[in-house]
């Protein structure tokens, strides 16, 4: 990133904080309803000091990772079968498109009935919210593989699981990454949403507690954390993965 761009960003965020502080200082609304950035920061400090924030982050991240892992494994498998077997595509494929349009939160009632208030229920919502994005991207990726790659590989004796792991998956990898990225975005929204509704530990639960105790600065503090983790994962994990693959394929 250029120095210039960094400077621009810093100025922008400082300006936002300044305006926020000014509005808070103007006392249009009571402090409990519109806290200042400083109070939010203090709340983050309390949360960090008593460990509740880290515990929340850890819980949410663990659920996210397990849910996303399930979604990625299941989505890749499903996507490959859809791309390689016309019947699977015509049947399961149409269902996948339908299921993809269901917001993950809409799975919560079912998850509560099936799994009760448990990690399993939240992980279910996370995974099912993410799996179809992974599936669709995998499908598109495998469909877009230059058929000569597959023919050459088959000619050299590749079939079955070798064909999948040594050719189909690496050949579709640029698409798989978009799948992971979208999957992660759905999973992150899913896990927080589910935690709010399940009200069972994690960052979503902390939001809920904030609401119940009408502690607005806690609510905003947790939201800032959720956003921060989002930015961090996008930038550290996916940007890097993308850059690596792009440069290896000579796509940039």
């Amino acid at each position, binding site marked *: 990133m250029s120095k210039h761009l960094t400077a621009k960003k810093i100025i922008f965020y400082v300006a936002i904080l300044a305006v926020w502080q000014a509005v808070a200082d103007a006392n249009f609304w009571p402090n409990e309803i519109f806290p200042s950035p400083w109070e939010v920061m203090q709340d983050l400090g309390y949360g960090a000091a008593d460990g509740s924030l880290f515990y929340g982050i850890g819980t949410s991240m663990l659920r996210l990772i397990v849910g996303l892992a399930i979604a990625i494994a299941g989505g890749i498998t499903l996507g490959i079968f859809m791309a390689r077997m016309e019947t699977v595509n015509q049947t399961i494929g149409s269902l996948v498109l339908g299921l993809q349009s269901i917001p993950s939160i809409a799975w919560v009632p079912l998850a509560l009935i099936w799994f009760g208030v448990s990690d399993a229920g939240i992980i279910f919502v996370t995974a099912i919210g993410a799996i179809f994005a992974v599936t669709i991207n995998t499908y598109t990726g495998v469909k877009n593989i230059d058929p000569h790659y597959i*023919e050459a*590989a*088959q*000619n050299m*004796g590749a079939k079955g699981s070798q064909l999948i792991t040594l050719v189909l998956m690496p*050949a579709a990898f640029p698409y798989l990454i978009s799948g992971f990225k979208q999957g992660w975005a759905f999973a992150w929204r899913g896990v927080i949403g589910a935690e709010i509704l399940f009200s069972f530990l994690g960052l979503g639960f902390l939001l809920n507690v904030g609401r119940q105790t009408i502690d607005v600065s806690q609510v905003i503090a947790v939201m800032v954390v959720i956003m921060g983790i989002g930015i961090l994962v996008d930038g550290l994990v996916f940007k890097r993965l993308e850059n690596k693959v792009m440069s290896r*394929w000579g796509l940039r």
Partner: protein
Amino acid sequence: MVKLEARNIVKYFQHDDYKLKALGGVNLKIQEGDFVCIVGPSGCGKSTFLRIAAGLEKPEEGDILFDDRPVTNTGPERIMVFQEGALFPWLKVIDNVEFGLKIAGIPSDERSQISQRYLDMMQLTRFANSYTYQLSTGMKQRVAIARALVLDPDVLLMDEPFAALDVQTRELLLVELQIVWQKTKKTIVFVTHNVAEAVVLGTKVVVFTNRPAVVKKEVSIDFPRPRLVEDQKLVPQQQEILAELKPEVKKRMESE
């Protein structure tokens, strides 16, 4: 000994509202160690014939016999070299070359011994750790040939592998391929639309008719190697083949 024998190969392709007859009964015997070049007008079915020999397509009628057994599937004894090389962009040159060996379950030290030999033969040693996008088209075709050779196939099926090359690179590779053929004694079936190329390379040049293709003419070429494109003594054969090919190309133009 006959290595590959095409017996009355007929191939149709289903298009939306009609059936396109690509091959109209191709008969061809290819001896072990032959270097057969197939020429024909574009779209006449040369690639299709090669793909059937590779086992990538199935004919509606007829059979291709490999060592007297009908070809039903692809196999590492018949390796196809595609026009664009079809190299795997996610692998380094060396891993591309070793791909078939890896599939065959050959341990990695043995793999590197074998691949080293062919990387040397194709003058690729310096590029072993490059990715394919870093290579010129000529280098890519070298990799594609090395990748095929490591499997020690009986037959190499080459589909216009030099079509995309610039003149200098092509001439270089024409000589190199002759040397490879002499060293390895492979049976090669080489499709091209370039008569000069066919005459330089082939022990035999086969002319296909316009679609639906059948074999129109077989011309044996025996001159010492390596032959060069500018060799004057090849001109009579070149003329003979062109005389057979031109009316087919004309038919092709008229049918459009």
